Every structure is written in structure tokens, then in C-alpha cells.
């Protein structure tokens, strides 16, 4: 490419220069930079939806005869460790209720999976157990949206029924607040 007199062979030089420029352009141009702001919007929408659903599930629908609020659906599900009921309510009653279609057609994937965990405080430490775990097929790992986490403190009158052996031993049988944490992601 270079003569003894340090001169370029012109044609090869031009070709090489063009190839280098083109390569640089293609490499840089094909990299789409996903800014934190863009990610935030999708996450924020899903997080808001999850937060609203937990709030609604934790709001009693009516007063009892003694004019005290009824036990909320969420408190009832945690108190009885109703795993399928939680998923059916969270996803089936709110997110994807049959017959209810969003007015906006581009409102995102309707396939949302959830995993719910209950955190409680033992005498000495913070412990948790799974309220609902999704089935084995978690969707496509390479094309999944990032997950969001929503939480709500729920009042429990005592130790829930139906707990697994470890949580059953560790949880106090007293009125307490437990943190319900739901991880949501689109598949």
C-alpha cells in the first residue's frame, strides 16, 4: 500500500478510507441507545397499574353491620394463603378481565406475569414466603421487559393459615403488618 518513497497507492487508499468510514458509520448507527427516560415511562405505567390494583384489592367494599370496614380481599387472601385466588384476582379480575378491553389499542402486552412474596418480621429478622409463584414457563428470557416491583402493607390479625412449614414456624401468631410485594413483568 505504501511505496518505498512513502507514497500511497491512491486507489487502494481511497477504497480503504471509504471502507473504514462506512464500517464506523454502520457500527455506531446500528447501536440504539435506550435512554433511562424511555425505560422509565413503560416501567412507570406498569408500576402505577400494579400499585392501583394492590390498593383496590386492599380496600374493603362495604361496612359490616357494626359499621366497621369489612376485611379487604387482599387481607383475606394473605390470611388464608390463597395462592390461586391472588393470581386470579390480580391478573384475571383487573389486568386481563375477559370482556373488558382497553379503549387504547396500543396499551402494551396483555401477558403480564406476577410473583408475589409476603415479608414479615420475626422476633429478630425479616423473613418472607411466597404467596404466589408463576408456573414453570416464565416466557422468553431474551425478549422480556424489565420487571417492576409494587408493595403494600397489609394488616393481619394473626398468623395466616395454609403457610409452608418454615414460615409457619417462624411467623408470630399475633396481629401484625406484613408487606405484600408483587413483581410484575410483561412476556
Amino acid at each position: 500500500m505504501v511505496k518505498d518513497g512513502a507514497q500511497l497507492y491512491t486507489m487502494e487508499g481511497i477504497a480503504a478510507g471509504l471502507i473504514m468510514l462506512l464500517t464506523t458509520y454502520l457500527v455506531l448507527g446500528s447501536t440504539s441507545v435506550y435512554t433511562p427516560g424511555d425505560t422509565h415511562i413503560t416501567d412507570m405505567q406498569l408500576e402505577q397499574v400494579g400499585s392501583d390494583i394492590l390498593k383496590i384489592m386492599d380496600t374493603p367494599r362495604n361496612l359490616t353491620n357494626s359499621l366497621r370496614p369489612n376485611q379487604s380481599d387482599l387481607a383475606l387472601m394473605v390470611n388464608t394463603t390463597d395462592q390461586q385466588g391472588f393470581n386470579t384476582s390480580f391478573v384475571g379480575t383487573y389486568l386481563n378481565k375477559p370482556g373488558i378491553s382497553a379503549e387504547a389499542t396500543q396499551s402494551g402486552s396483555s401477558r403480564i406475569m406476577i410473583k408475589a412474596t409476603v415479608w414479615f418480621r420475626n422476633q429478630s429478622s425479616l423473613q418472607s414466603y411466597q404467596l404466589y409463584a408463576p408456573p414453570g414457563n416464565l416466557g422468553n428470557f431474551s425478549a422480556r421487559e424489565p420487571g417492576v416491583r409494587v408493595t403494600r402493607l397489609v394488616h393481619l390479625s394473626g398468623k395466616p393459615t395454609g403457610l409452608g412449614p418454615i414460615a409457619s414456624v417462624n411467623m408470630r401468631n399475633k396481629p401484625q403488618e406484613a408487606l405484600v410485594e408483587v413483581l410484575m413483568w410483561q412476556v
Partner: protein
Amino acid sequence: MRDSAQLPVDFLVGFTIFILSLIMVANFVPSLLVGLQRTTGIDYDAVAYRTGVVLVEDPGEKTGCDLGTGCVDLGKPDSQGFRPWEQADIYHKNEILRLGLAVSSNTPNILSINKINRFFDTTFFNDQFDSTTNDYRSKLLFSPTYQYGYNVTLQNISPMKAGEPALKMSVGQPYPAGYGYIRRYVLIKQNTNATVNVNKTMAFNAVSDDQVKQEFRIRLDGRILYNRSIDNPYKIDLLREPFTIRITNLSSVLNNSAKNPSPIANSSSQWATNFNYPAELLPPTNATLTNIVFYPSCTAPSIPFYADRMNLTVDPELPSGSTQILPSGTPLTPLPVVNTIELSVDPLWPPGVILFDEYNCLEIGLVFQNNLPHTLVTGSFLYDYTNVTRPSLSTGMLEVGIW
């Protein structure tokens, strides 16, 4: 360069390539930054989010006086000064500053059905896209000058009443291709109602017809209804929520009481043997509602009824049934009633006029004709948490699209 100042061809070619490359690079740079530019949707998503928060978490706001004409109506008995925004009439629409649907500021996600009905009333609010006086743009999007496109849709997830079709209401335009969006899940608080059966075996049957007047009262006690131990989502707030009371089975108490049973009400063949009501020549066919009055403090002398809108329906189950709107303060034209009276009272506001609030009691009296036939009805029905139907909170989905 040589001494003769002539450029060599090599240098010329090299310089040309350099310049061309520079031009190409300068052209490429902006397109390389496309990925870093904000997408056009971000701004709209933010506006949609903000609008969703205002609708779902805020009760809205209204000034005490008309922005256009000043506070001219304050102090008058019919002042609209401090009413919640959903009770403003068309003349006071300009006083509405912000359209929020929440029951109160401490009940986010719990919406009032009365605010919802008024919000989606496009005969009241201007929904025309191109209009410079579009109400939703100025009172909800806070952009009277920038012409955002918008769509607000609310639909039920659980029905308002069993068997009723799902509610779906919408304002704005159809969604275009690209838009900002937020979806909120909400609970909807509905109004209360009560049904009173005045069957002659019940407590509301007068024992004789020698009373001064045949009158049935509905007792609204603010001290009970505004009990502070009851949270806002479940409170019966008659200053903000209309209520309906249905009085049925009036035909069973015409000339008929538990103490002095009259066979006439059920059988005209025994008419002649009826000693309790010898002056009556014909079996009764209907009662006559002669007046509706209010009793401030539940004990004071009666005053003409006063409410925004009072709808009186008689015998809705019969072909002869009818509905009329009663204008405040005017005497009622006596009205024949066969069996049922349904009274819908819009919010009892302002409290200064009729003395109904959390410290005061109010009775609504339905006065029946005391001449023949006697409507042997008496007593007072307490409109409280135990005696009325309180619909459960129903779930809904609110969507806001902005473009």
C-alpha cells in the same frame, strides 16, 4: 510543493479525500445521535400521567365566586358559593377550576358517581376539539392555548348493580396512531337509597284516623350520618350525594289500620258493614299526597321544602305512573297515589338555608290527605346506615390518552 509553486497530483488527491471524508463525517454525526433524542411520546406520557393523577386522586376545586363576574352571588340564600364543583349549574361553570373525580382528597382511587356523571356530561362541558373554550383542556389538562388531543374513558370492571350493563363513558376524540397513555384502576362510590313498606302490620301504620294529619316523615340526622368513625368511602354524605326513598304498599293502609282493620281496602262487598268508616260511600282507590315539607332541626315548625332538585315519581309500576321535578319552595299540587311514591332528593345544599349538616337534623314530611280516604300512615323513617341500602364500591378502569 516544489520551487515552481505547482501542486503535485498526489497532494491534490489526498486533500480531496480528506475534505470528502470530513464532509461525510459531518453528515453522519447528527444521524448517529438519533438514538439519544427523546421520543415524541415522553411529553405526552407525562401529561397523561398528570391528568390521571388529577382525575383519580383529587376531588376537584371550585372557587366561591364566578371568575367572570366576581363574587356577586355570595351571601344570597341560593348562593352556589361553596358547593363542590359537580353541583355547579351552567351559570357557575366558570367557577370550576379543576375537574377531579375522587370522593375527597384523602381517598385516592375512590371516585364519586356524581362527579363521574357530571364529568362525562358533554351537554354541560364543552368537548369540541377545535373550540377555544374547550372545558376539558382548560380545567383538566391546564392548557387552554396548546391544543392537546385527549381521550378519557371510564368503564366498569364489576357492574354497578347486579344485572345492569357495564358502565362505559368517554370524552374526547378517538385515539390516533401515537399518544401518551396512563391507565388507572379505581373504585366507584354510589348513592344510597331506601325502600319503606308501609304495610298495615308495620310500624308506620297509624292506629286511627283521628290524627291531626296523616303524615310520613323521613328523618335525616347529620349527627348519625356524619359519624366521624366512619371513613369517607362509606359515609352517607347527603350534602354531596342524592338519595332516593321509595314508599310502597300505600294501598294497604288506605282506611285500614292494624288496630281498626277495615275490610274495605281489600273487599268492596263488605263496604256496607264497615262501622269504622260509615261516612265513606266508595272503597278507596288511591291516596292523595297533598304536600312535602321540611322540618329543620327535626322539631321546628315546617317550612316549604328546599332542595336543588327533587324528583317525585308516583306509581312507577303502573301505566298511570308519572315523574315530576318539584321546584324548590313552591306548594305541591295534590297528587293521587295508588301504591308507591319515590322521592329523589338531590344534594341538600347549602346548609345555611335548611340547617342540615353534621350537627343538625332534618325531617322531610310527606303529608297525605286527611279527608276521605284516610291514608293511615304515620311515624318517621330514620335514614341511617342500618336502614338504607348502601351499594358496595364497584371497580372500574380509567384510561387517559393524550396526543
